[in-house]
């Protein structure tokens, strides 16, 4: 008796790339364009059909799915200013499909709310896993999170996103019941470095929380030897609540004075924001690599059109991985494309440099909120 394999439901192309893509940073521009055209135009069609408020918004620009005929037309997809997520519930699915309400941290009270369904949250986790696999290349690590657990983070996206590393690596959180415990974090760092139970140690947190940790180490004259295998992963803004900017160079100087033999290649900043469903991690050359299914546009704030490669402008994302809301977002971050083609690390694609936030009435940023709440120094 011969039985044949019956096919089950096929994996969607985008999910294949997110969850299983192994060569995504080696694509040439032609392949990237083809994929972006296919995936982003499909996502636009979906959100235009399923998100009433976005459709109305697009109609004002006289832009609809038939407006996308070539890759260049993706540049004209109506972008949602991130501030709009503070004012409206923007949804492309039924409310009962939402599994996580994700909030930004308006430091003066107003917050953005982004609604994620299971597929969207899973894809976010997929981007986290692929970052670790493909840009950090870490197999086995223990993670020290200078932030709260996912339960304590509640709806605050930044903290939640940092804490879900627990899905990949064993993680311990060092903000508990709203209190940061630097002495316990140091004890755990020391133990992990010396036990050799893990190949690597990953310390994650907002730059301000690292500064809190380093200040404590400084005050108590604590140094960690053998820091070669520690990854220092920062995320969130590089500005303090006081308005003072944190220099990356000074930060590394402080860090390397306390973590002896730390490797600069293991110092990785990461970009994400509540409205973006993908993580943009840095490679060992400190370039923030953009996964090829996400298109980054740098927009001239005056004309509203994309600037030349390398020029500075407002950062915008076309991210097809979000299903529950249209992730076609104009941010209030100023940046530029720092890479088109081959990086020194060997990976290719688009690289992004975030320069600063637009000066606005309300300072917005999760790291700022962490600074306001937890930082003493």
């Amino acid at each position: 008796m011969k039985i044949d394999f019956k096919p089950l439901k096929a994996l969607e192309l985008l999910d294949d790339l997110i969850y299983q893509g192994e060569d995504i940073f080696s694509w040439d521009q032609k392949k990237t364009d083809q994929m972006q055209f296919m995936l982003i135009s499909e996502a636009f069609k979906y959100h235009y059909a399923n998100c009433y408020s976005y459709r109305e918004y697009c109609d004002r620009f006289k832009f609809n799915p038939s407006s996308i005929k070539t890759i260049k037309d993706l540049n004209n997809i109506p972008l949602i200013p991130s501030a709009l997520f503070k004012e409206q519930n923007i949804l492309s699915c039924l409310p009962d499909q939402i599994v996580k309400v994700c909030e930004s941290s308006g430091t003066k009270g107003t917050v953005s709310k982004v609604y994620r369904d299971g597929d969207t949250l899973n894809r976010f986790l997929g981007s986290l896993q692929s970052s670790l696999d493909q840009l950090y290349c870490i197999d086995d690590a223990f993670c020290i999170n200078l932030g709260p657990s996912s339960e304590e983070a509640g709806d605050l996206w930044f903290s939640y996103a940092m804490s879900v590393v627990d899905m990949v690596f064993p993680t311990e959180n060092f903000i508990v019941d709203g209190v940061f415990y630097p002495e316990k974090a140091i004890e755990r760092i020391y133990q992990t470095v010396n036990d050799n139970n893990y190949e690597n140690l990953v310390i994650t947190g907002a730059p301000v929380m690292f500064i809190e940790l380093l200040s404590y180490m400084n005050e108590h004259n604590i140094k960690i030897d053998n820091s070669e295998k520690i990854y220092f992963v920062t995320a969130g803004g590089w500005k303090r609540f006081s308005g003072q900017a944190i220099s990356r160079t000074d930060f590394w100087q402080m860090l390397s004075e306390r973590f002896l033999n730390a490797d600069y290649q293991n110092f990785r900043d990461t970009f994400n924001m509540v409205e973006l469903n993908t993580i943009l991690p840095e490679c060992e050359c400190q370039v923030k690599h953009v996964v090829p299914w996400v298109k980054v546009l740098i927009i001239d704030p005056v004309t509203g059109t994309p600037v030349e490669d390398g020029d500075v402008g407002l950062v915008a994302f076309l991210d097809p991985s979000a299903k529950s809301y249209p992730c076609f977002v104009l941010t209030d971050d100023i940046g530029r494309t720092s890479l088109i083609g081959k990086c020194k690390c060997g990976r290719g694609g688009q690289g992004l440099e975030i320069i600063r936030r637009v000066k606005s009435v309300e300072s917005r940023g999760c790291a700022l909120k962490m600074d306001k709440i937890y930082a003493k120094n």
Partner: protein
Amino acid sequence: MVRVQGGVTKMILDYQEKIINIENSSKETIHCVYNYTNKELPLIVIPPQFEKTIRTNLTTMLYLINNGFNVLRFDNRNHNGNSTGRIQDYSLGGAYDDLVEVVNFIKEGPVVETENGMGILGISIASRIIYRYLSLNKNVFDVFVSLAGVVNMKYTLNSILGYDIVQEYLSEPNRDFGIKKVLKYPIDYNNFLHNLVNLSLHTLESTQKDIDRIVTPISLIVSENDKWIDYNECSEAFKNNADILVEMFKLPGAGHELYKNPQSAEVALNKIVELFRTHWNMTNENYIHKPEITEIISLNKLERERERFYINL
């Protein structure tokens, strides 16, 4: 007994959890986690995949427990997880012995109830061990479902490592193969290869011989783009005993590591629930309850804490 709090859940049923530490004759511990809602439901045993632990099969457990089954997961000795020993000393023979110990404990009763049936779910390398178990132990399990199951260790190791280490061992059995990684963790290859070949667990032919002796009904779910398994070999292994094959399914586009691919995993887990339900004629149940990712994230944290607690013991 731990009662898992319903507070973190939205879709998941409240379930009970019992930790069982089985001691073998060498005074080594096999750490098991038994989850159940109603002890009268059929039991599904889930051995670990290579390098993985009880926690890795959390989502699988949640699908089964929410859809009419109890689940017993365990950690292999000489492996990651909470059983005795380091992964460096892992061998398939050792993993086989663990399955024997666990099943003997279940059969002895009365801790784990199996009056209404017992099935086994094998994922990846665990399937190869289960084929051997079923060939030597008839009428213990009522049904076996294999997901991305290994049938040819020689092929799988060759695909992972990029060279035919089994052939090298067969050519030079006295060579020192040292301690090296297979995937993420270093393994003592001398012990691993010697055990694999000595127990004849290394080739497709050896799997065929095992399958020839099996009477348990088996269903297969394979991944179409599995780089570590030639899925055609999965059916080929049944060429002399096709009558025990109930159904075979293919996950189009999926690779081997389904724990990284929730979309294909969901499709596979739905099918696994259906296959077990069909076996026990649970035909009045059509709807499949699915855990939400937020629930999995919360429960994963609890399982991490449990893992840490038992490591400290």
